[in-house]
């Protein structure tokens, strides 16, 4: 949970220490630790790959082919439904981050700087409230939501918006700290821009790295969410994987591998977004 949040915070504050320092480990020790740790962590991943290639006798791509075989469409239907639901949830959650959290953060930073500490405390709270605890309180709330807004899966995004809050907050705040939004906003206002223009055409482009990182982290968290969906009886990608795993463990493992690869690419993209943000800050600092 707190992983991505701290990662983002770390990547922005991390000072690059010189490569030649007295305390850095020697080449041999560096490689020894690296190979041991990386090797151990590769075992389950390699095992997953081997597992999906089994076909009773030897190894083949049977299970990979089966996933896309139209004959099996019926069997794997829960997965495609779950994936669709998870993608829809990602979209709504990202919308909450971009259109509710981000404008509020800008407002707090511009107009209520004295509230910043309290605001930070509140939005970081979900780190210390486990999802399983939240579910206990969400169950009655979702009974009411079910009656008023229907039992559509998209309403889960309200809960997900809370769980991604700490991660999204740190990414966006890092961008806000790196940008002089007060001067930008004042300049735009002086030149006659209304608040919507200031937000959308002046501030949003400047905060792009943070907004992008916040969105990508939100997508990663939503795609991996299981606790809330399963206990509120909604179907998403993870609950579908559990269902399908009972009939066909191979496909569940194949999709887990795919999800891992996808998350890896997402995080590389976040790293890129963070780095372009850093470059921007360096460019601004001399002025």
């Amino acid at each position: 949970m707190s992983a991505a949040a701290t990662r983002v915070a770390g990547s922005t504050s991390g000072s690059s220490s010189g490569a030649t320092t007295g305390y850095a480990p020697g080449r041999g020790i560096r490689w020894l630790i690296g190979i041991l740790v990386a090797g151990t962590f590769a075992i389950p991943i390699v095992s997953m790959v081997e597992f999906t290639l089994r076909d009773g006798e030897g190894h083949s791509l049977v299970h990979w082919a089966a996933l896309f075989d139209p004959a099996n469409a019926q069997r794997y239907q829960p997965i495609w439904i779950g994936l669709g639901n998870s993608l829809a949830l990602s979209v709504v959650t990202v919308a909450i981050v971009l259109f509710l959290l981000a404008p509020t953060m800008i407002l707090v930073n511009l107009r209520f700087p004295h509230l910043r500490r309290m605001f930070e405390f509140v939005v970081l709270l979900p780190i210390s409230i486990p999802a399983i605890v939240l579910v206990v309180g969400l169950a009655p709330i979702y009974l009411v939501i079910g009656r008023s807004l229907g039992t559509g899966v998209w309403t889960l995004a309200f809960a997900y918006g809370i769980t991604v809050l700490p991660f999204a907050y740190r990414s966006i705040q890092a961008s806000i700290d790196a940008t002089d939004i007060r001067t930008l906003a004042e300049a735009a206002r002086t030149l006659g821009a209304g608040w919507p223009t200031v937000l959308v055409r002046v501030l949003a482009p400047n905060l792009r790295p943070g907004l992008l990182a916040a969105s990508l982290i939100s997508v990663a968290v939503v795609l991996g969410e299981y606790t809330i969906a399963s206990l509120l009886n909604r179907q998403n990608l993870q609950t579908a994987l559990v269902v399908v795993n009972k009939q066909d463990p191979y496909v569940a493992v194949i999709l887990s591998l795919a999800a891992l690869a996808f998350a890896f690419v997402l995080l590389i993209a976040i790293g890129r977004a963070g780095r372009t943000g850093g470059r921007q800050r360096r460019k601004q600092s001399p002025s």
Partner: protein
Amino acid sequence: MTTLAPAATRAGSGSSSPARRGASSVPSLLGLAPFAVYLLLFLALPTLIAIGSGFIDDDGRLTFENVAALGDPVIVQTFWNSTWLSLLTAVIGAVVGALACYAMLGLPAGGRMRSLVDAASGVLAQFGGVMLAFAFIATMGLQGVVTLLLRDAFGIDLFAEGAWIYGLPGLILPYIYFQVPLMIITFMPAMSALKPQWAEANLTLGGTPFGFWTKIGLPVLAPSFFASFLLLFANAFSSYATAAALASQGSQIVPLQIRTALTSETVLGRENLAGALALGMILVMAAVMWLYSLVQRRAARWQR
């Protein structure tokens, strides 16, 4: 926290006159309203319901019956299981993760190796879920790769004493698998904040590289290490999905006990036990996070 200072001073020297700010603050306050309502409905309300429902019986009357159940031997045992599982995996994760950070010391922060490790750690730290359970079933399940390898090549039967992977001991390795990357993520910033000048000063004054670590490095890093350890503990303590997908025998840890209480209504002959269990979890988490904020304040001293 440390980043607050510059913004605050900038705000203090803001050029807008007090009168103008006062006039605009009413509509601005309204701008905070939607987010405040959202937090109230989906963060404050669920938390209050979760805690409050532990104090209410089925007829809506106030009762301490459920909270008293926290003293029941079964529940105490579950909390103990959760605690030692989290402690054990946090200790191992913290030590192994710190070693990995040490190995990366001196690599440039924006370099290819560091970004690769950053991304991989990010993925694996988030991996703690259903998919992690699948990974370990494929690795060490009854038909797992390692299980078969040990059996065929060395004649070792991993499960001679029963299929422990589906019980509480089976959670240890999967938990370590997401604890180590989380340690790398949270501890690396502290590690790279060690200043090369300190090492140079140490050498100039006649110290040894070993002396650098015992007299400077470890004392400076100790608070950050402990803070990361607490985060790891909290992370394991609140983790649910891996256990839910892996452990098929009973409800040995608190989150699984909450699931049982939520889905089967009566545990130990009590209703609303989920609320009492949630209260217990929140108390533990609050204590851990309070300790974390204390240690973090101490750790931040060296990271400016």
